[in-house]
């Protein structure tokens, strides 16, 4: 199985807009809060702080969206000082009830471990391309 940017959702899906069982936003927040050693909320990053500080530069039609996006929606991890950005982004989507991820690096065992824990906490699955359930067997061989 080739894994790229896994999803966390309560059900497998071939179309993210058709997901029926939604993830709990509060459980999501709780989980990230327990893993503040690893994750940083977007609003707590330098980038996020700057955005919020310069809200006047944000077009009005985007302000609500920006505030929402900076309110415990995006958790980032693994900042790369050379690249100057976080290489792991986990993003909650309330409308769709899923969590999307962006990995700008190879996905390793510890990444999946975090996602498994998150999925367990949210009573959901880690999914590859939405369709494939990734379970712990997948990573048992990884280091």
């Amino acid at each position, binding site marked *: *199985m*080739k*894994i*790229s*940017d896994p*999803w966390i959702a309560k059900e497998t899906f*071939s*179309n*993210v*807009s058709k997901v029926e069982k939604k993830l709990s936003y509060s459980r999501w927040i709780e989980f990230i809060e327990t893993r503040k050693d690893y994750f940083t909320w977007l609003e707590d990053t330098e*980038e996020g702080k*700057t*955005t919020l500080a*310069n809200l006047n*530069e*944000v*077009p009005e*039609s*985007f302000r609500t*969206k*920006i505030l*929402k*996006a900076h309110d415990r*929606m*995006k958790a980032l991890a693994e900042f790369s000082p050379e*690249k*100057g*950005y*976080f290489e792991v*982004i986990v*993003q909650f*989507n*309330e*409308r*769709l009830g*899923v969590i*999307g991820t*962006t990995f*700008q690096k*190879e*996905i*390793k*065992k510890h990444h999946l471990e975090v996602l498994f824990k998150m999925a367990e906490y949210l009573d959901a699955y880690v999914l590859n*391309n*939405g369709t494939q359930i990734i379970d712990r067997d997948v990573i048992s*061989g*990884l*280091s």
Partner: protein
Amino acid sequence: MIIRLITDMRKTFVLMFSVLLSVLSGRAELLRNESSSFKRATVLIKRKNDASIYSYGHELRKLFYYHQLHKVKSAQQAVQSSLTRTQIAQSFEWSEPEINDKRLNVAVKAINKQIDFNNDLLRTDRNSETSYIVDLRASTNSAAFLDDEALLSMNQKLQVINQNSSTDETKPACYVLLNMFFPADEDIQSVSGLDKEAYLKKYTQELYDRSQLSANGILLNIESFLSIKELRTVFDEKEKTTKEKPTFTLTYHPFVGIGSKLKDSSYDALIEGGLTETSKNFEFAVQGASTSANKPHRADVLSAYVSKVAQIIEKISSGGGSFFEDETNSEFFVELELNDVEKSELEKVLAEPNTSPSLTSNLKDYAGVSNFLQRLFGNYYSRLFSEPEGLNLKVITTSAYNTHKGQNAIQLVKEETLNPNTLLLGLHFLDTPNSNSEKVSIRFTAKYGSQFDKQVKEQLDNVWEDIGLLKWTDQIKDIDDKAYSDFIFILDAASEFLEQIRIPKTWWDGDNWYNLDPFASGVINGILDDVTGLLQLVVLGGKASASIAHFGVQIRLFAYELATNDTKRTQVLAELEEIKENLFPILKNGALGFITFFSELEIPDTTLIQDFQFFFPKGLGYGLTAEEQLTYINNIEALNEGDLGSIKELVVNFSPFVLALNSDAEILKVAFAFELGKTAWEKVQEMSAREIEYYTGYAAVQVALCFVGVTEIVAIVKGANAAAKTFKLADDLASGLKAIKNSGEKTLAGFITRLKVFLKSFDKTLDTAGLSRVKNKLKAGSISLDEFLLLSKSDKRQRIKVAWDASYPQIFFERKLFEDVMGHYRYAKSSWGHTNDIASNFKAIDFYEKGSVSGNNIFTETAVSMKTTTTTDVSKWLNSSAIKKNLDNLDVGIEAGITWNGKTIFYNKAEVHIYLPKEKFTENIKTDWLNTLKTERPSIQFKINTIDEFIQ
């Protein structure tokens, strides 16, 4: 635990790789020099941008003809022929270079001086622990190869060897000379191409022979790299002409010389084996170096080499025993098929004690097989024994039952002292034929008196081969005995089999309704010829390079299965027959004649992928990052059958890919494509025999690799049970053919077969060096935006049509053209942002309406993903995993944007712009699509157009 596991895996990796390289590498050979048992291992390391399937195929072809030519020459014909085998060989090999004698003598003196110095040390301190090793590197520039610990350990081993030896007390029996003086650059600068290798070889040989090392030293020349630039004639596929192309080759020449007093055949194999392995490890390291960001220094490789040599020494020392001075003979092995008379004759003599052996001065027939020998040598028998042209032939025979004082003929030959004109043959009959066996196995050796010069020896060795003797090489020993012993039979049977399945002339020559396309027939026959050639190559055995021999072994095993397993043979034959009968008429009669063969091969190990990439740098995956390859494969998978089958050009592609899951556990897939386009049919009139040969030769190697099954190569050389694997091999072939046939029947347009296997392996990183080259290669078939814009409007439209018609791999570059073209006309930079400017692989979004920017945030009303497709079936389009992924990502980004490389695009509206070819676009399709998409993806807006509408 995990760490240990990884270490083990790494070891396996190294082992697998070394084995594989010997199978696949163009040339990794051991040459033997008769005068001082001088061995030379050469590993050719081809740089990425020059090694090609063509050169590899060419190599095989060359050897094949070489062999063919050789084969028709019997021992008699060789003498009469105007062109001797040696001459033929020379045309492929090296010329004799002139060595700078002065410089050589300086080096010899230095070595001898150092050895004398060490001798002095030993005289004063017999137990000196450091004086068995002469490290010229340490003495010249104080950069010793061995650290103290390794040095001590190696010396201790050498000490054991010396203590066990019975040589002169005043001198140690064994030295090791680490490193050596190498010819100065200016000496070899003027020497061109492969002659440099010859120069090195001769230089080292001379150095060794003239120095004290030749008596009781071991020479390890390990810092010998040579880079060679040469012009090679290649056939340009596009222009249909040949071109001179520079190729760069880095060669490594670790020489090992073993002193005459240290010679022992049992150590020969050990050293040879060790050297081979070392050379391969070296190549592995170099390969690793080229794909890793932290390139190991040459010195790392060399120290690995030295440690391997230390291992060899250790083995020698633990083996104990003394050394003796002797000519080491080439040993052969022969299996002879017997007729009834011979069989009963041998059965009798070999099974009974020979109490009164015939012992003349010429024939010591302990085995009692003189009648059989007469039959074997035919007319030669009496002529040889009558001492023609001053030749004195002596033969010693023994058998398992009848040895001489417990010694067999091979051992007896070793003990004989020869007159200069004597040729001594030793034949040891291994087993007794019985009712179950129609063959007799003989170990065979030839020892030459001093009058025989090298050339004569070679010719005679060829004679042994001509009468069916094969060198008994280490590689062959690894192979299942049964498979090996039946070799001659297999070879003939397989050749015959392949002859059977050739497409006969009557099938394509004439006006009959059933006639096949001549070109298609030619291609198929060409492939079969090449496979046959590979089979026959095997005959070269030890003569061919080790790698070729290895490769040959695989073909041999395949052939063995075909020849010996009736069921398999029938099965395979039937499949091929069906292909011939059903598929080719389809192809011929189909308006779109083409063959597309896209296959993904089971690969058990990353090493193999490296090998593929090494030998097939034209492979499209080569040089791409794992990420890019993923995209590429996904794209290929996303293509519908129409795309796959739309190949219009004559293309033969071999495209290996690697899919990396992560650095610790990978999922691997090697894909390769073998395509013959429509124009292949059209161009048959234009093509010369040579061109066809080129294409078929090119294809043949791929096909052979595919057929033989690279997985089996790995497994077989690992030494597991060969019989089981040959079985699987034939199974694979049969099922592969079946798959081809089935899909061929299903799709009138051609056949696509996919053998999908994913395998886990470990660490693999691809370098990106070849990326631009690969892209450029593909781009060559496409045009740039600038070029496009210069065209007239109608030409632009025509070009768009051409681009739509392109198949993979060109398709990706043509589709890129679409993106560029639309980026110019529809999403002009004056009012649109291009994510390409942030990153070529920006997630989900291609273009966005210009809005405002604050820091790393981009705010746009509309983000657009541009999609091109030839399919008119919307559900098919939606089901493609690449599309699904794209739409999901766009959808989920509406709230919090999409971040890539630290930049976030926030958008209020996600749009997907779909482009269909003008020929396929209709209002009905548009409506149908939009309705479906609206229901399926309510939060995304879709627009469907043709490219042409926007072109001005």
